[in-house]
């Protein structure tokens, strides 16, 4: 199987659109909104602060003299500005968000409420541990749930997101190799070509060389090719399971055995853990490290690009190298291990300044205890059932990339669009006009024009049926020669296709005042 190097089109295609222009540029509920720098006043502010009583100045002659030129908005102006902006976004609360590998599930508002309890949201990472015993207990409890669900003996809680968790796991592997005196010789990391981009990027950030393993015809790691690549210079393997094709790596134990026989370690990318939580435990499959995306599997909101949280479970072989700080339970309560001594003497150090994403820990634990062991297992089963239902319904018009059932996401290629003049990007943009957020497109790279659909357990059958009906109608329309309509899409969104090529060629990354106008905001 070869890499898809076609890239995806980044320039807008022209196509006819009906005249829906208005005098204001607004379209009913869609209100055009300028940047705050174009509307705010330099003297404006939306906060009422008392004037300082004294003129004492101990800034040591480093006072700011120059204006930085940021306008302020009154509260009603600010509210309206951001509410108008919000109405230009699609969101999981509005409809299905079937981005494969992203697990966009419902975000319970109970979790938000819990994270805002003063005793959980308004505590400082460096206040005395005697005053945060409940916080440490919460972290310890969440760690227990994560260890139990994964069947792993240890978990590092501080990684800030999935890629940060990958870094944690790979640094632990590097540290273990150093302890064996083999860090200098074991410099190669194997990763399938279907891997998330973060895997090779993380390995490189650790100073490893990345060697790509091909996929077999069934969309899984080619075991024979993998075995051939093993050698005394291999540090380990990074495999996503279930993988990015939405398939369980059925040879996972053979992979684990082979890498362990070669004295390497097994890193598992846990981005797709939602498919197997409560159904199978990575600890029973031979892995050494795996990050868990609390912002995917455990429902902490993705927030338009974060924050995430990536606790990383570790095997007994890697646990001694876990990052500080971590929580331990002693006879007189919970304690934080913050320096490299005693059991932490081999710790590889710090991933981040403090203890990790506490705000996400609260939300994730709220989600987990709400579901319980029974609910989590049911959620995984429903997620897999929903994906297979979509696969079954869509395969009449669309082309599944691989035969057989899938796990929590269904992968299609673009064969069904052959000779229609419509490509994957056009198909995705047409979905926008139908009221849906598109699926993940052009990923994984091993499939041509990939469309990866992950419905999650949050979708009802009724919602799935409407979604499938819409996609089937689009597939039929493409085959019926309606390419022009696809090329023009979207026409009903707040914006038509945006020119990414132009954006990258001459980047405009901040507002600057129009020429001729004075403002200290201008770049120096």
């Amino acid at each position, binding site marked *: 199987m070869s890499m898809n190097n076609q890239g995806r089109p980044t320039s807008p295609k022209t196509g006819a659109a009906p005249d829906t222009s208005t005098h204001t540029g607004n379209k009913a509920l869609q209100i055009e909104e300028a940047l705050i720098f174009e509307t705010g006043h330099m003297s404006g502010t*939306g906060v009422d602060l008392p004037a300082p009583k004294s003129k004492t100045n101990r800034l040591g002659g480093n006072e700011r003299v120059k204006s930085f030129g940021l306008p302020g908005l009154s509260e009603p102006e600010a509210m309206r500005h951001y509410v108008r902006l919000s109405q230009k976004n699609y969101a999981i609360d509005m409809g299905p968000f079937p981005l494969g590998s992203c697990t966009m599930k419902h975000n*319970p508002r109970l979790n938000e409420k819990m994270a805002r309890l003063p005793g959980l949201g308004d505590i400082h990472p460096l*206040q005395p541990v005697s005053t945060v015993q409940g916080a440490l207990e919460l972290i310890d409890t969440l760690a227990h749930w994560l260890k139990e669900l994964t069947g792993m003996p240890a978990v590092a809680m501080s990684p*800030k997101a999935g890629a940060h968790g990958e870094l944690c796991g790979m640094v632990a592997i590097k540290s273990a190799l150093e302890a064996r005196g083999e860090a200098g010789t074991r410099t190669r990391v194997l990763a399938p070509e279907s891997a998330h981009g973060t895997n090779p990027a993380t390995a490189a950030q650790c100073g490893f060389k990345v060697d790509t393993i091909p996929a077999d015809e069934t969309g899984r790691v080619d075991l024979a090719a993998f075995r051939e690549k093993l050698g005394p210079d291999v540090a380990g393997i990074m495999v996503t399971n279930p993988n990015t094709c939405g398939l369980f790596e059925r040879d996972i134990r053979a992979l684990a055995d082979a890498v362990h026989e070669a004295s390497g370690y097994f890193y598992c990318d846990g981005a797709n853990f939602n498919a197997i939580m409560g159904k199978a435990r990575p600890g029973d499959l031979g892995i050494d490290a795996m990050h868990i995306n609390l912002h995917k599997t455990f429902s902490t909101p993705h927030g338009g*690009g974060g924050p995430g949280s990536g606790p990383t479970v570790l095997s007994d072989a890697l646990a001694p190298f876990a990052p500080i700080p971590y929580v331990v339970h002693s006879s007189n309560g919970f304690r934080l291990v913050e320096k490299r001594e005693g059991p932490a003497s081999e710790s590889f150090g710090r991933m981040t300044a403090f203890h990790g994403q506490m705000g996400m820990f609260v939300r994730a634990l709220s989600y987990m205890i709400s579901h319980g062991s029974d609910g989590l297992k049911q959620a995984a089963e429903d997620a897999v059932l929903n994906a297979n*239902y979509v696969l079954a319904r869509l395969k009449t018009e669309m082309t599944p990339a691989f035969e057989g059932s899938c796990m929590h996401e269904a992968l299609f290629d673009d064969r069904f669009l052959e000779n229609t003049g419509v490509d994957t990007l056009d198909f995705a943009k047409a979905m926008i006009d139908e009221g849906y957020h598109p699926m993940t497109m052009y990923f994984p790279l091993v499939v041509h024009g990939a469309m990866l659909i992950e419905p999650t*357990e949050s979708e009802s059958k009724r919602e799935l049926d409407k979604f499938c009906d819409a996609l089937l109608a689009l597939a039929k329309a493409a085959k019926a020669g309606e390419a022009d309509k696809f090329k023009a899409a979207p026409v009903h969104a707040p914006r038509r296709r945006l020119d990414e090529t132009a954006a990258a060629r001459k980047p405009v990354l901040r507002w600057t005042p129009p020429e001729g106008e004075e403002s200290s905001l201008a770049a120096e």
Partner: protein
Amino acid sequence: MRYLPLNDADRTQMRETIGITGIDDLFEDVPKDALNPVIDLPLHIGELQVEQVLGALAVKNRAAGAGPFFVGAGAYKHHVPATVDHIIQRSEFLTSYTPYQPEIAQGTLQYLFEFQTQVAALTGMDVANASMYDGSTACAEAALMAKRITRRGRVVMSGGLHPHYASVTRMNSELLGDEVVLAPATPDGKGEVLDLIDDKTSCVIVQTPDVFGNIRDLTPVAEAAHQKGALLIAVVTEVVSLGALKSPGEMGADIVVGEGQSIGVSLNFGGPYVGLFATRQKFTRQMPGRLCGETTDAAGQRGYVLTLSTREQHIRRDKATSNICTNSGLCALSFTVHMSLLGETGLRQLAALNHEAACNTADALSAVPGVKVISSSYFNEFTIHLPRNAAEVVEELAAKDIIAGVPGSRLWPEEGDKANLLIVAATEVTSSDHIVALADALKEAF
């Protein structure tokens, strides 16, 4: 289970459509003996019970806003306007994904563009990215960026850099075999990195105000660094200080990283926060993380997209500038909303109030027999020397419901000479009653 819309009738019907009899037919690739393990965890519970469980944990913690509170050192207790929390909880912001489909994510993209503009303006730099995890990881990424730009492998860190930032940076740079040099931590802000800079140095990292609260003039460091072909990375852990102090850009910094928590983000026991990352125009393509850029759509209308993604992991894989993917989008929104409410006028007022609170606190504490205020210039945080172990004093005062500050032993557990130091922060929420309570309690402590 309240979060799962499928009922048993749906499930049966769906299994029929798929053509399977039992759900485990879909899990047949899982090794048989590993399927359906016994999970020793409690069963599902209702919303009320969840509130009781988590509420019981919450009340075991002393909230910062519940009384006198002087803890800073990288995270600060500030007031956040109610508008901020309302806006970030709007479904369209809270429950959206990274803006990969820009036509239906203009809300996220426009606020990121506003965020980038605000961060660049505050730091005195040309460009800023769409956020990092936090200040410490931003600092580590800045050192890696300096390595790419200078093609050198020696990082020099000021002793006034927050020791946790120094640890994170050291860990990341040493992974790539770089030499990392840390100057001794001097509580008075004297003693510097100038002598450590040589022509193998990729970057010099200096924090201002430093971890002890001292304000540093970066201009001489910038000159020394540039003379040797090295970059100056400025670190700001208290972003409100930029309302009162000269920006790092004005002082010659090449990269400015910071912790943005103070504007709009709750303390959250250390996270999530929002890492700020800004630099000069010429280094744009070496930046880590996401960038939002302006463009036009097919109808010629202005719009925004994620751009320069050929730097990033999903395109460049092992050649990417960083492995970062998810960042701190929603915290960046908090920052932007709060900053939009403040404006320059409000931020300057807020900074003045913080400085006043710190001066008042320092005056009150310097009147306590045995206490010596070490910092001479500071913004909203300063260091004092106590006649006995500061960690013990902090514990004693905590028992009286006064959270006095960060003892030296918490940040430098290996350095005995810092055991009597206490780092004290005051902000606009610090009242004169709090200050009196702290001074009185300290009088009784020795």
